[in-house]
């Protein structure tokens, strides 16, 4: 491990974290910690001549972060951070970021991220939209059996009306879901989404001791959507959504 070799930086953890023995990172390189004053960077040596961003790289990055997330607080650093030399990890990351890292690590300690995604049942939601909107029902009748070329503009209009109707439903229902879950969480980040079936996509930061209550609240929310939409909860995850700058 020479000092002039480029290093990949995965994230930052408290310095007293023990790296899991045998953990390998990108390209199978052993993962190590570089410590400075109570904070440590998770790194592995990397060959700079090979492009980064392949499937295996992303999965390896994710695996390393996830492994440390099971041990305690971790600040994930966005995928793609390669420093020219090992020494730059201290000079370029740990030293300048010291105060910020300490603050984040203490803020994230005992907390985990959960990603919740709601998807409408497309048939059920479109049936509702058609049933509740006479103008949509009428345009649908007009266009459905016509050749595509003959009904081009009518179909654009139909799609526009459907998109609007779906947006209204989504707005109201995603707010209702958030209102039910947010009280159990420390922070949340609503992510963009689209498509006919998009209902909600949101990341929550949850205290370990509130996790049961949070999970039960997601169950209640999912039950209330039964037959119309499904909720999918992924987590606990590293707090990817809660370390970016304001």
């Amino acid at each position, binding site marked *: 491990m020479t000092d002039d070799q480029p290093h990949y*930086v995965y*994230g930052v953890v408290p310095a007293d974290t023990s790296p899991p023995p045998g953990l390998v990172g990108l390209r199978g390189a052993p993962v190590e910690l570089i410590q400075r004053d109570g904070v440590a960077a998770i790194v592995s040596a990397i060959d700079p001549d*090979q*492009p*980064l*961003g*392949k499937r295996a790289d*992303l*999965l390896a*990055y*994710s695996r390393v972060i996830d492994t440390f997330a099971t041990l305690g607080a971790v600040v*994930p*650093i*966005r*995928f*793609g951070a390669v*420093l020219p030399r090992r020494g730059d990890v201290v*000079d*370029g*990351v740990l030293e*300048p*970021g010291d105060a910020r890292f300490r603050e984040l690590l203490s803020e994230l300690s005992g907390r985990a991220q959960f990603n919740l995604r709601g998807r409408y049942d*497309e*048939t059920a939601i*479109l049936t509702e939209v058609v*049933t509740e909107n006479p103008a949509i029902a009428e345009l*649908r009748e007009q266009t459905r059996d016509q050749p595509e070329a003959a009904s081009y503009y009518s*179909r654009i209009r*139909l*799609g*526009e009306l459907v*998109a609007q109707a*779906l*947006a209204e439903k989504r707005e109201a229902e995603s707010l209702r879901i958030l209102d039910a879950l*947010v009280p159990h*969480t*420390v*922070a949340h*980040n609503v*992510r*963009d989404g*689209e*498509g*006919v079936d998009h209902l909600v996509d949101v990341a929550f930061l949850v205290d370990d001791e509130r996790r049961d209550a949070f999970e*039960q609240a*997601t*169950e209640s929310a999912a*039950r209330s959507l*039964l*037959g*119309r939409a*499904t*909720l*999918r*909860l992924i987590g606990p995850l590293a707090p*990817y959504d809660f*370390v*970016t*700058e*304001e």
Partner: protein
Amino acid sequence: MTVETQRRRGNYVERPTPSGLAEVIDIILDKGLVIDAFVRVSLVGIELLTIDARIVIASVDTYLRFAAATNRLDLYEKGGRDLFEVLEGGMESGAKGKVSGALEGVKEKASETFKDAKEAVSGDEDEEDQGEEQKEGRQQRRPAKKTTQRRRREQA
């Protein structure tokens, strides 16, 4: 409390373990702390993640897609019974779940197309070939997308 504990891994919420590339990208895309750019070496290939790899479609295409999905619905299936009635009846009795049962046969067909399209796009590395300029132009015309990128901290 006993009941609640038993409910903890209930049947209503799906709890998958993310393992595929598309799921991992969805979790890490544009996330994580950005370290100072002047020491960061950008290697070829990273661009894949710096652009939004999720679906980017011009508004007209989106509308036509929505129209197609709406037109694919077969509201008059199942022995000629009008599903408008089924839906309304279901709503009145407060048992909306009936609807999905009645529509079961149609459901699969209707949802396949979108799932396929989405999977094709999210795993699609061709996205990186799209010029940033072109992408932004298209983004502005996106209709159904709400910019609800919101963030709130209830406590420090």
